[in-house]
């Protein structure tokens, strides 16, 4: 047995390298992460920063040609380099995964009930087909799908997007996993449905004491449901800590930029600030800190040396100028130059 406070999932020094025609592409360059039981970890970043690749590496779902280095421990058991056969026993049983697009992530030629029942029977062949079908209906009830008996007999195309995502969650929850990985579970859904799905995930996480890894590029969703947050940029973690610390006082310029680009319901209505430029491609990563070409605080050191994660007042930040960034007033240059809104001058 492991000690009770040991993390459920512990990733240390994870590096993922894709072999490409023009050399090797480093998708993940040293990621350290932890997810604990009964806790939600928000993994945030722009498209292509490596959020999903990190979690696919955990699940062992990356193609065999991909090189994975570092350690991935689940309940203290090393997953990296474990044969697919053993990983398959964990997948769907101890670690569940929810995909982004419920349109495409369900098998179009099987009924919802059959797919959930299959997920159960894959891991426990002693369950009869009849019992599994009954449990599938129970799972649909658990994810608050109305008329679960009828829905179980329907095909994915007969359900709405939100309903399908609930069915996906039911499938992932069928074996009561200890860790649930949700890869942008609400991106493909309407805003009103998004809230319902997030609420459902929160409820399931609380009642089942699961660890939940919520991958998202939506800071709003993460702020509302995560306990801890890790911000990723260009294959590394740039900031990591408790959700309230990071949202109150972000220390990495990238996190600040992300937060400044969100509209606020309180406070004064200012123009939204965008982070200039776009994330670097895998083939042309800047020297030093990968964010420095887009960073307003960048100095020479930033282009020369890649900053390591360091602890500043309880938050891990990878920035040479973190102290200065945290003390600076929110986005000075961006707001100062903008004309004030008409109704403010009137």
């Amino acid at each position, binding site marked *: 047995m492991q000690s009770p406070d040991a993390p459920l999932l512990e990733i240390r020094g994870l590096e993922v390298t894709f072999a490409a025609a023009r050399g090797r592409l480093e998708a993940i360059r040293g990621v350290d992460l932890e997810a604990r039981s009964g806790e939600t970890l928000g993994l945030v970043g722009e498209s292509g920063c490596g959020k999903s690749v990190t979690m696919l590496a955990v699940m062992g779902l990356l193609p065999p040609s991909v090189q994975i280095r570092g350690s991935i421990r689940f309940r203290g058991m090393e997953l990296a380099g474990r044969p697919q056969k053993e990983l398959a026993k964990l*997948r*769907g049983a101890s670690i569940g*995964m929810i*995909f982004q697009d419920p349109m495409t*992530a369900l*098998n*179009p030629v099987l009924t919802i009930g059959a797919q959930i029942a299959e*997920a159960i029977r*894959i891991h426990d062949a002693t369950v009869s087909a009849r019992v599994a079908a009954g449990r599938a209906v129970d799972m649909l009830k658990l994810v608050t799908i109305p008329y679960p008996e009828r829905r179980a007999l329907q095909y994915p195309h007969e359900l709405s997007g939100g309903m399908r995502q609930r069915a*996906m969650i039911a499938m992932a929850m069928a074996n009561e996993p200890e860790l649930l990985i949700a890869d942008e579970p609400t991106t493909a859904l309407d805003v009103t449905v998004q809230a319902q799905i997030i609420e459902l995930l929160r409820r399931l996480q609380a009642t089942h004491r699961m660890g939940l890894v919520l991958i998202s590029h939506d800071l709003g969703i993460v702020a509302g449901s995560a306990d801890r947050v890790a911000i990723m940029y260009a294959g590394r973690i740039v900031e990591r800590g408790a959700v309230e610390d990071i949202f109150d006082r972000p220390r990495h310029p990238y996190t600040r930029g992300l937060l400044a680009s969100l509209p606020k319901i309180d406070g004064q209505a200012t123009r939204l600030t965008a982070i200039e430029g776009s994330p670097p491609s895998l083939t042309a990563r800047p020297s030093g800190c990968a964010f420095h070409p887009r960073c307003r605080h960048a100095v020479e050191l930033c282009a020369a040396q890649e900053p390591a994660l360091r602890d500043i007042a309880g938050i891990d930040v990878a920035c040479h100028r973190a102290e200065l960034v945290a003390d600076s007033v929110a986005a000075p240059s961006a707001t100062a130059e903008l004309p004030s809104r008409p109704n403010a001058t009137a």
Partner: protein
Amino acid sequence: MAETASPRPTFVRPRWATAPVTAGAFLVLFWVGVALTVQWWPIDNPVAFVGTRLAPPSVTHWLGTDALGRDVVSRTLHGAQYSLPVALAVIVSAVAIGATLGAISGFLGGLADSAVMRLVDITLSFPAIMLAMAVTASLGPGLWHAAIAMIIVSWPNYARLMRAQVLAVKEREHVEAAVAAGASAPRTLIAHILPLCWSPILVNATMDFGQVVLLVASLSFIGLGASPPTPEWGQMISEGAQKFYQWWIAFGPGMAILSVALGFNFLGDGLRDILDPRTQ
């Protein structure tokens, strides 16, 4: 005033049920029906000498008699009992072999893929009829030897088709989701990939059916398939070809081959329209 346009219940014809498809379905049904029931029809014995030799079409022998005085209509109808089962056996075996190898090849990739695809390339590099002739000749003439030859020449198409389908379907997200749910490799292939791969195979098999009937007849025509006195269509045409002025001897089996091939082609077209959402 009584309503002028009373809503009458009308049969709404599905979009795919065009005239050729319907005709094809009827032709196929007719010949399948003939093959299944012809032995109980009140017609002449196909191998008995029932009339004058080389008699022209008449009331008693609608398509006349052949060089040995056998009824051409009866022989033509009985021919369905040879051509259709042979074609069915060929198609089923070729699909079974081709689809299995193609699915494994597409799913596993790597060495298995290369091996299967090179085998396919080699087989396809010979003209089908030549290869079929060579194989039949080396096995010795006979309807079932011809069938084996045709299986050998027709499985590669199904292997290619299946491989392409599997390659496309295995990249879909629901397959990844199945793997993420813990499904083993064989289970992923059988339950989550293959059920989405069948439609082009089915369409092609239907179309090939007519081709195989034609090929069986061709092999029999050159003396590599059925041997006399079997009322096999190619064999009958071969006999008729020697009697230039007695056109009716080859006419019966000729029309039979034509209508079976046409029927299956039309039916295949219709199936494609039903199964392939892109053509709608």
